[in-house]
């Protein structure tokens, strides 16, 4: 891949989704675009970019940036966070809620395993959460990933990664193809939506809990700051943001700070209380 081609594709990803791709990861770009290149009949990424520059096509550009995204995910990733969320934090929040309703947002959900893991855990805690209405909205920028997530259908390797055999039997049905599909109840409980975290115009509403895990760390500095601000726009009063293990917002925004009450969570800092950098 020519250097100019890499930079054109890396800039496209950075501008549209905030994803930062280091030059050392040029091989990843070629790998992730190989199926698109083949499908469109190009000989290489160089040809694809040359065509795009001659005839700009926003729909195809969106498909390219979606293909460049990291899709790696598995069931019950960072399981301690999910367990704490469902076992401690959600019951506490419900106690302080008049409506008995909570809204949870999973951003960058890719093929949906995190949202299904959360829905499974909520079901397992149904006795404690009796009477509560908990809405899960799950978003991603990649429509292809969202189609897999909506279908809730996973292959041999995906279904076994992180999911116990007992949960598999309880919540999934084996299809004739050999794939496993999430129960209708699980699928109905999650609203999957296409959404770009950097998009200021698309409203999603306000959420009591936002899971934004392993998303911001892959972004450029300015884009990470912008995305962090978009997250605060989506937080309900007293809402919490959870990042992935090892991720931080320190230095990216003064609008969120680590919660003293809930380990691993970030909370909104009102304007007058923000620390001046």
């Amino acid at each position, binding site marked *: 891949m020519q250097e100019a081609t890499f930079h054109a594709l890396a800039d496209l990803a950075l501008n549209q989704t905030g994803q930062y791709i280091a030059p050392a990861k040029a091989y990843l770009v070629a790998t992730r675009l190989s199926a698109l290149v083949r499908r469109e009949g190009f000989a290489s990424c160089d040809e694809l970019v040359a065509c795009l520059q001659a005839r700009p096509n926003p729909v195809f550009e969106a498909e390219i940036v979606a293909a460049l995204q990291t899709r790696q995910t*598995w069931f019950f990733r960072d399981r301690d966070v999910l367990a704490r969320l469902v076992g401690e934090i959600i019951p506490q929040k419900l106690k302080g809620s008049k409506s008995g309703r909570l809204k949870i947002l999973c951003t960058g959900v890719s093929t949906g395993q995190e949202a299904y893991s959360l829905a499974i855990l909520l079901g397992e805690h149904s006795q404690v959460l009796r009477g509560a209405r908990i809405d899960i909205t799950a978003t991603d920028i990649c429509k292809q990933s969202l189609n897999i997530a909506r279908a809730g259908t996973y292959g041999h390797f995906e279904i076994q990664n992180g999911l116990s055999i007992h949960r598999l039997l309880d919540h999934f049905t084996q299809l004739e193809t050999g794939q496993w599909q999430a129960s209708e109840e699980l699928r109905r409980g999650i609203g999957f939506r296409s959404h770009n975290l950097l998009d200021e115009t698309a409203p999603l509403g306000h959420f009591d809990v936002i899971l934004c895990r392993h998303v911001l760390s892959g972004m450029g500095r300015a884009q990470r700051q912008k995305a962090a601000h978009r997250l605060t726009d989506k937080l309900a009063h007293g809402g919490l943001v959870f990042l992935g293990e090892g991720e931080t917002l320190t230095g990216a925004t003064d609008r969120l700070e680590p919660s003293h009450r809930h380990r691993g969570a970030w909370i909104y800092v009102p304007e007058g209380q923000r620390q001046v950098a």
Partner: protein
Amino acid sequence: MKTCLIVDDSRVVRKVAGRIVSNLDFQVVEAVDGAEALAKCRDAMPDVILLDWNMPVMNGLDFLRAVRREKGGGAPKVVFCSTETDRDHITEALRSGADEFVMKPFDSEILQSKLAEVGLI
């Protein structure tokens, strides 16, 4: 160091699984069928058993029922590893005393995740 008994009549599967669990700091013991595995369990109960279904001499299910009747045989975590992956076979394995089930083929992530499920890593 925890011990993992790998019971499979395929040398390739024993080698692949052995390498994965060695990297997870398990000491590996191998058996080619249920009868040999039972003898090794009578000698020393392992912490976990990765168990194939279809094997000569004594199959995985017969071994599982037998080992659970042995003194101390309730202790090892048993992870079935089989190409018999329909719901009925999986349910039968669990009813017979298996703790987890891996559908073959598997990779290191899957095996690691299943060992985590049974609390061994």
